[in-house]
């Protein structure tokens, strides 16, 4: 009986140690993921998936990537490529808009065209999604005006704009035109 009790006690302590180890492991994994998400504290506050439509320096049009607002720069990291960046003080305006687009790209288009009895039209009726657009107006070193347009998931453009403002972007400098156009854009797209 004595060896059996000893065995039971040992197995109990083993279980306790194992469960403690598992608990610590879970805690450490959680802490690691949190630290990865906020690496560097407020410097890496915003990181959002976006599609670059046009205008950002050294970036292809219509490519997917990640938009970062970090250390006084607005960066676009194209999937599998290096960053393209823009200094936030050079940004003169950031305007929000919305757009409803068909999803699925070319494969979906081919599928819809191949669907008999006009079924493709019915699919089109439901295969659309609303996106936000973020239009950024900035100036280059010579003072030339540029514009870049990004497409983001619904509600995310406002986050980027707020972060740009928080990082010191001097938005709506100059005439009142951008603000009017921005409001027109929102009202137009909600039709």
């Amino acid at each position, binding site marked *: 009986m004595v060896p059996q009790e000893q065995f039971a006690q040992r197995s109990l302590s083993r279980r306790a140690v194992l469960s403690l180890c598992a608990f610590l492991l879970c805690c450490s994994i959680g802490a690691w993921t949190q630290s990865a998400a906020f690496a560097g504290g407020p410097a890496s506050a915003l990181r959002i998936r976006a599609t670059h*439509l*046009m*205008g950002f320096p050294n970036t292809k049009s219509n490519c997917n990537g990640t938009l970062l607002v970090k250390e006084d720069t607005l960066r676009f990291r194209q999937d599998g490529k290096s960053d393209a960046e823009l200094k936030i003080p050079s940004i003169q305006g950031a*305007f929000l*808009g919305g*757009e*409803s*687009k*068909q999803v699925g790209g070319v494969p979906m*288009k081919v599928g*819809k065209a191949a669907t008999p009895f006009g079924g493709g*039209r019915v699919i*089109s*009726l439901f295969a*659309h999604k609303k996106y936000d*657009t973020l*239009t950024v*107006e900035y*100036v*280059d070193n*010579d*003072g*030339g*005006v*540029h*514009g*870049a*347009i990004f497409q983001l998931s619904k509600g995310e453009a406002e986050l980027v704009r707020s972060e740009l403002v928080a990082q010191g972007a001097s938005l709506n400098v100059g005439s009142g*035109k*951008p603000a*009017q*156009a*921005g409001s*027109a*854009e929102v*009202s*137009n*797209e909600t*039709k």
Partner: protein
Amino acid sequence: MKPSKRKLSICLGAIVAVAVAIPAWVSGQTIAQGASKGSSASNTQWSIQVETVEPGEIPFAYSFQIATYESLVEELNKTHHFNSVFREGDRKAGDVPNLLVLKTTVVKYTAGSETRREVTTFSGATKVWVRTQLFTRDGKIVLDRTLDGKVRFFGSNLRATHNLARNVAKMIEQSPLPASDQAVTITAPAKLNADSPGEGHS
């Protein structure tokens, strides 16, 4: 000399003459073509500065304004018709001797819908008409036209701005520009009709 040999020598002579004459004729034609190309590109001494798009009273989305502006700069660069293409506010444009300024004002805009286009085919087209004016530095109008850009069937709404910019660049490329600093009005301002206000079409 036998007649057959004489015929042979005549044929050989003719072949040699043709072989000598054809390259000379071809090279002459090439030179002529080069000269005519040079005369058609007589306005390459001009540079152009593109101004941002003025929406006027039209509720034209800001993304569309910027897309039109960026597409105009890109399409004008593609034509190789001007020495340099400058953006609005570019300080380098101040030093350029022969500069034209491109001003674009939205005249009419019909907002479309990609989903409507996909579902119905015949409706939902996005259309935009702009008044395009080319000025010299001292304010003389060189060119004044109204052009349009449309998306009727396929593509996103922003594609209308790309089509518009392509039409504007093509129109400027095909228009004769005056010799430097002797600008005169070439065309009268276009009138806005119900559906096709301009002279250019997509």
